[in-house]
């Protein structure tokens, strides 16, 4: 029972962090950033030395953890800010559909850049092996990694909440997410807020990359897409633009996946995702605005 709870929480953590990265950017510029998944993949490959071999040559990944973590977060933030400056800045006033397509294109650019350097074969990579040891809590044997994942996610969420509530930059970001042009008329600098959102979102992508690669032990240029899909669904269920909703829906999705894995009859288990997405459709039928509807996305008259 406890095992299920922890499974659900750790999978949910991944989805919640992913959804948060998307919701942050959607909040300030109404952009659904489909390149987010590829930023995650980029962060994973930033640990490796470019080679097309099946065995990964771990390069930056050999750093001790207290250097490794900032390095990966920085890679994510850096790439994400670069995307903003080079690409999204030119689409600032474009309509959301145009921006979305630009983000798809950008995602492909990043993916094929990785393909060029690393080939498309998934590589096995053993990152921080000491984390796979089991620990015993309340009679359940859990991988230490799972515990760390959950704790790290909680710390990130708390940190982000404090940042958004207590700092001037956080305040400006919340105001801009609600009504961007009003915030600007009060002197909030558009570029600063948007770049900040991209940096945060990129750092979250870095965190996901670390967790994911430590959990699965493989690096695959396609890996971003799978998380991105779930994370995107979580932001939609949560109410696009609502950060709390994104996190909540991320955890719900994680829980739904794990619970169905356990509860469904054996024959139906391969179709687990179909059931999860079915549940998503149901939620959206009854609450099309999402679980927590974000203010400011409403139509203005």
């Amino acid at each position, binding site marked *: 029972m406890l095992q299920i709870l922890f499974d659900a929480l750790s999978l949910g953590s991944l989805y919640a962090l992913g959804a948060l990265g998307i919701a942050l950017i959607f909040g300030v510029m109404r952009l659904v950033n489909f390149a987010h998944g590829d930023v995650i993949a980029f962060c994973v490959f930033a640990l490796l030395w470019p080679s097309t071999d099946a065995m990964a040559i771990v390069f930056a990944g050999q750093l001790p953890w207290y250097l490794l973590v900032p390095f990966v977060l920085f890679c994510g933030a850096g790439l994400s800010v670069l995307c903003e400056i080079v690409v999204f800045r030119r689409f600032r006033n474009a309509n959301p559909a145009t921006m979305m397509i630009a983000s798809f294109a950008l995602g492909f650019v990043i993916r094929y850049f990785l393909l060029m350097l690393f080939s498309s074969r998934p590589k096995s990579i053993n990152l921080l092996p000491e984390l796979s040891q089991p620990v015993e809590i309340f009679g359940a044997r859990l991988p230490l990694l799972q515990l760390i994942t959950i704790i790290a996610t909680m710390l990130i969420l708390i940190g982000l909440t404090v940042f958004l509530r207590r700092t*001037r930059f956080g305040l400006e970001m*919340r*105001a801009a997410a609600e009504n961007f*042009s009003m915030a600007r*008329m*009060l*002197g*909030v600098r*558009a570029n600063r807020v948007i770049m900040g959102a991209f940096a945060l979102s990129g750092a979250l992508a870095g965190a996901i990359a670390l967790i994911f690669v430590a959990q699965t032990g493989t690096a695959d240029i396609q890996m971003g897409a799978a998380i991105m899909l779930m994370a995107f669904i979580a932001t939609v269920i949560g109410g696009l633009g609502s950060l709390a909703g994104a996190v909540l829906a991320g955890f719900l999705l994680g829980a739904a996946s794990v619970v169905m894995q356990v509860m469904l009859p054996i024959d139906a288990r391969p179709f687990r995702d179909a059931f999860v997405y079915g549940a998503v459709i149901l939620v959206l039928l009854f609450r099309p605005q999402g679980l927590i509807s974000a203010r*400011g996305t409403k139509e203005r008259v």
Partner: protein
Amino acid sequence: MSLLALSDITIRYGRLTAVRDVSFAMNEGEILFITGPNGAGKSSLLRAIAGVTPVAGGRIDLAGHEITGQAPENIARLGFSMVPEGRDVFGSLTTEENLLVGAGMHARDRGWRSRAADELEAVYATFPMLKERRHGQAGLLSGGQQQMLVIGRALMTNPRLIAIDEPSLGLAPNINDQVYERLIALRAQRQLTLLIVEQSSARAMMVGGRMILMRGGQIVLDGDARTLGSGEAIQAAYFGYEDH
């Protein structure tokens, strides 16, 4: 030199011309009403000054700088503060947070808190009601309270010129009177220049000052509100009788 000067401003939305060759200037300390019927281009004009609506032609100068085509945040830094139509409070933020959004602009990051605290006290002194509701969600304030909040928020940027778009919209007449009382008091207290858009010229005649009447994207009358407001000229201009 005038604080705000518009020359030959034209604003287009696609093929529709909302404002055509409008020019006027405002001096420091002046109070100017822009009135006129729906669709006269009043709001477009304000939004163009604020930098959120692009102009198709003409030039705008504020406090000795050309601001045509500048970003809204830079125009705000020159002392222009806008209270848009429909008030636009940040509904999910608290009352105090709404005010604080406007406070950061002139201060460097370090001194932000203390400077903001001074500004907050000044605004709370003018609008005690806001202090009572400081930790409440701004979206839950009544219309009149929200109007006071956005005026307070505009003050937090320490502006020289405040532009207000239809402060009467959706407010009960007695609440509206209160809003204007505070505005007039503030103007005297802080040597503010006020640019107010209203549909009806009644308020302008009551308060006094200068009045510009717009119709069809152009200025039809410009003069003292009290003398302009009395005659048939204004009725004719307002309803466009000369067209019939």
